[in-house]
């Protein structure tokens, strides 16, 4: 679903953010992306989101080389990717419902169909009774869940989460991880960027570790044998 082939990313200031990155994520796979800050996690996510383009090598989404996607076509590809942001990135000038409905409005859904999907997403995240509230009155955990609802409302085939459990207590983190698990079980490719080691240790998922722009680990930590 997501494939990196000899990907290098050098920024205009000469900084090499990624060096020769190779990996492939299958559909329905849940993977952690980890590494210290500055290791290249954000750059890697930006390449998947088509915010940045690789300096060399290929990034494939589905079977499509993102370098070959025109600027005008990028929005339509992004609609297949759900993104959960570190700082939620909710809009405080509208209700929870309208925040979650935004991707559907952008995709041109009919209001009734959009409403059905928004409520399904809110229901799944236990936010149905909060739909008319402004997200500013919600707790951090609830805001994060609104962000997840918005990311999945469009039924994306790829779900990217950037530090989704950043400011949450372990109990809430576990809840959110369960949700991601459920999505991966229905075939969504889930990539979770985090530096929360304890979170990674608690689950038995594939881990990709970056250090100084290089991929230094790709495998399952809790299993015996070779990586």
């Amino acid at each position: 679903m997501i494939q990196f082939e000899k990907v290098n990313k050098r920024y205009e200031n000469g900084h090499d953010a990624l060096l020769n990155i190779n990996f492939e994520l299958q559909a329905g796979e849940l993977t952690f992306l980890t590494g210290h800050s500055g290791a290249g996690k954000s750059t890697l996510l930006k390449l998947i989101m088509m915010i940045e383009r690789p300096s060399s090598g290929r990034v494939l989404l589905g079977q499509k080389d993102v370098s070959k996607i025109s600027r005008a076509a990028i929005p339509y590809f992004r609609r297949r990717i759900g993104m959960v942001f570190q700082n939620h990135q909710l809009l405080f000038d509208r209700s929870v419902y309208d925040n979650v409905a935004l991707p559907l409005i952008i995709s041109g859904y009919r209001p009734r169909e959009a409403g059905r999907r928004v409520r399904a997403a809110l229901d799944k995240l236990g936010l149905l009774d909060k739909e008319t509230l402004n997200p500013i009155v919600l707790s951090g955990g609830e805001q994060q869940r609104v962000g997840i609802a918005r990311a999945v409302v469009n039924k994306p085939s790829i779900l990217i989460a950037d530090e989704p459990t950043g400011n949450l207590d372990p109990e809430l983190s576990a809840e959110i991880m369960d949700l991601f698990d459920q999505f991966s079980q229905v075939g969504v490719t889930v990539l979770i960027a985090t530096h929360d080691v304890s979170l990674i240790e608690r689950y038995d998922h594939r881990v990709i570790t970056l250090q100084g722009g290089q991929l230094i680990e790709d495998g399952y930590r809790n299993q015996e044998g070779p990586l």
Partner: protein
Amino acid sequence: MSVKQTPRGATTSTVTFKQRFNNYRDHHRAIAKDSLQRLLATPIPTLMTVLVIAISLSLPAGLYLFLKNIQSISGQWGGQAQVSLFVRPQVNSEQAQQLAKFVGERADVSHTKFISREEALAEFKAQTELGDLLAGLDENPLPAVVVVYPKNTDLAAVELLRAELAKLGAVEFAQMDAQWVQRLQAMVALGEHLVLALSLGLAFAVLLVIINTVRLSIEARRDEIVIVKLVGGTDAFVRRPFMYTGLWYGLAGCIAAFVIVEALLLWVRGPVKLLSELYASEFKLQGLGFDLFGLMLLGSVTVGLVGAHLAVGFHLRKQNNV
């Protein structure tokens, strides 16, 4: 009997063109309403921007109306344009009368009036105190005059007629008695050019005002734009609310300009009426009219949309791919 049924997919996924169009229209309606509400939520800054646009519009519109009214006055007086043919001294009175008759029969001439040398002298004496001066002279120095009243009182046509009549052998020289009108009209033509230049300059100023105003509202919604783009919003989707902002500014500015110009007209209507009565003129003050208002509306809405489009374009380019 078994009926073979074609398998049917999810019915909700089939969206007809009409539904698509309705969705799009509903979306536009919602965005238009939202943009308007955002403007009304900050009434004072919005009003100030609208007034800047209104003043920039009403200035050239007002000037244009002023010129148009002057033109209509001069047009009326141009209607009295006539050509005076001064007859050569060696032509006798009878011949001069024949000239008047001959010219009067032309297709483009309504009628002529013959003023003999004696009549001219009498008129001169009656109108001025200089009669005694003339009495001292041996003979009457004044020529006979044929006053020609043209059918077509358009100044260009009268001028053409004058030039033709000047070529007649018996005519010493031909004079059009509407030269001041001509000069006025030339000045009005110059004024029209200046109004056009002023309009273009002010349209540019309005464009800058709109770009700057929309830029500020873009800044206020910067986070929203980033999110919209990351969840797959096209540039057109990002641009749409701001296009409506530009549209509303254009519309509101034009309507405010209309009110300003009409109020100004109302204000000068009284004095103008008095003045035209004193001149026993049929003159009626011309208002903006449908044409000019339509032109203003078209111009200000266009400038509003172009300004908004440019402002969003600058922002999207600055924001790069996000």
